[in-house]
């Protein structure tokens, strides 16, 4: 699987990568090639995104296969950490330290000192808009502030590659917008290559068109997001329609070439459809409802959650 196949040298290359924890499989024969830019890693919770990041950072070692990051193997390679900034999806800030103490520790671990370090801290907190809270204990930060401070920690040593694991998780819409804007700015104005994960496709779409879909420990699709959307559209979508006289509507729907199957649910006023071209279905539906003289009280897709879409992609 290749993200942004443009001939650039890959920043990450994983081949036949597998990682398991006892009976639990984290990654299974995972293959991915990531080239410079912003790359989104999308997958439901527990799909293997965080395991992939841990392998990228050398926090765990692969059971099989290989991975190179910026041309180097990450396991037991601390020098590589000079070139990577990591913002984890979990709470990692020491609650009893202030933001400044936290950033000072990170800076010193990266050989930054004195006025150069103080200056860099000021630059970074300005960038993530955390200047006001720098001397407050991180334990008192809001979720959005903690995310910003973690991003500041990841950026402090000006790494070539920035890894952001679910940076939008648990944040409110305003903070989400700010963080998305920040991520785009970090690439556009500061030149960082960024890998950002999420379990929400549309959030990633707002940051980049290069995505890799991860499901059940495998990279099931990758490339431009429009190609992935086309790929998804080739698979039938499940839609439930509830209302009155749905039998008449079902008869009409059966004649449409984009309807794969129609089945009645226990409640006779409820119909489940399998639709191959959702766009055509939604465009024609008002006409068909009118023709069938039925009234629709409720309509919803069973595939709104990402998990269902992934199940299609892996053929389950």
């Amino acid at each position, binding site marked *: 699987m290749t993200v942004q196949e443009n001939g650039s040298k890959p920043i990450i290359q994983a081949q036949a990568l597998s990682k398991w924890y006892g009976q639990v499989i984290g990654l299974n024969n995972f293959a991915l090639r990531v080239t410079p830019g912003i790359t989104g890693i999308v997958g439901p919770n527990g799909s293997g995104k965080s395991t992939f990041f841990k392998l990228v*950072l050398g*926090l765990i070692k692969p059971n099989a296969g290989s991975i190179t990051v910026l041309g180097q193997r990450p396991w037991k390679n601390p*020098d590589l950490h000079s070139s990577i900034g990591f913002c984890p999806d979990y709470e*990692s*800030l020491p609650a*009893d330290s202030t933001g400044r103490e936290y950033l000072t520790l990170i800076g*010193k*671990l990266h*050989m930054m000192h004195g006025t150069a370090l103080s200056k860099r801290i000021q630059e970074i907190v300005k960038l993530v808009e955390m200047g006001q809270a720098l001397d407050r204990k991180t334990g008192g930060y809001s979720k959005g502030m903690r995310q910003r401070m973690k991003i500041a920690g990841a950026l402090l040593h000006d790494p070539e590659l920035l890894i952001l694991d679910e940076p939008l998780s648990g944040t409110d819409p305003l903070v989400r917008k700010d963080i998305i804007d920040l991520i785009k700015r970090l690439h556009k104005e500061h030149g960082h290559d960024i890998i950002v994960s999420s379990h929400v496709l549309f959030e990633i779409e707002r940051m980049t068109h290069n995505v890799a879909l991860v499901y059940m420990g495998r990279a099931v699709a990758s490339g431009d997001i429009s190609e992935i959307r086309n790929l998804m559209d080739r698979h039938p979508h499940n839609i439930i329609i509830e209302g009155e006289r749905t039998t008449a509507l079902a008869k009409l729907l059966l004649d449409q070439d984009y309807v794969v199957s129609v089945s009645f649910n226990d409640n006779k006023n409820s119909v489940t459809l399998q639709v191959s071209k959702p766009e055509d279905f939604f465009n024609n539906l008002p006409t068909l409802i009118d023709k069938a003289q039925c009234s629709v009280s409720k309509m919803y897709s069973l595939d709104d959650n990402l998990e269902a879409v992934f199940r299609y992609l892996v053929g389950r």
Partner: protein
Amino acid sequence: MDLKRVLDGIYALTLHSTKKLLFGKKAIITILVALFVAAVMGYAGSQSHNPLDDGTNLMDTLILFFFMPVMAMIFGSSLIRDEIDDKSITHVATAPLDRAFSYLGYYLPLVIAVALSMVAISSVGMVAFFGQHGFGSETLEIYLEFLALVVIGSFVYSSLFLAISVLFNKPVMVGLFYAFIWEGYIGSLPGAIQNASVKHYLRSLGSGWVEFGDISRWDQASSVWGSAALLIALAVFLLVLGAYLFREKELA
């Protein structure tokens, strides 16, 4: 290997962890232990007719051989495991510093915190006991000898409990077992079995220095220098073992 980067990294971690250990929640335990020691030794001092022997015996049994391993266990046995569990270890694990050296950045602050706590507790005990009988040159000698023993004990016990912190998933349970059952009970049994405790060699070392109390009459298992060499070798072995295990450890 960039030596400057290694030294800078160790220094930064040492500074951070020392502050956390000395001014964190565990500092309250040091204060409570010091108050307890002050009460016990203060009362014993008021009842003592042979202060040099009685005071030395209390420093020996209460501080060196009871609170010394207990305090090292409290500070050390969960130091790394706690950071692994609450994931605050991420900034260390993703720093450009070999984890074997990061381990030193945990060991040094642990030694500093344990030694300072034990020096404070010992000083409180000395003042509470000998303050009632006056401080002479012999008292000062006993004080300095015990300070030397608690500092040596800090190096050895810290290496032991920090290794436990990396080696086991439930290090506090193992630490409690070691501090109370092994050091506290097995180390006090008659016969050769007590040679398998750190406290035996600390006591052997002390018997060559201290001239009062039961410790001065301690039947040495080996010479003073032999005990010192053994304690140093044990501390170095445990430090290297712990650093190796930490380097190889997956932080899932």
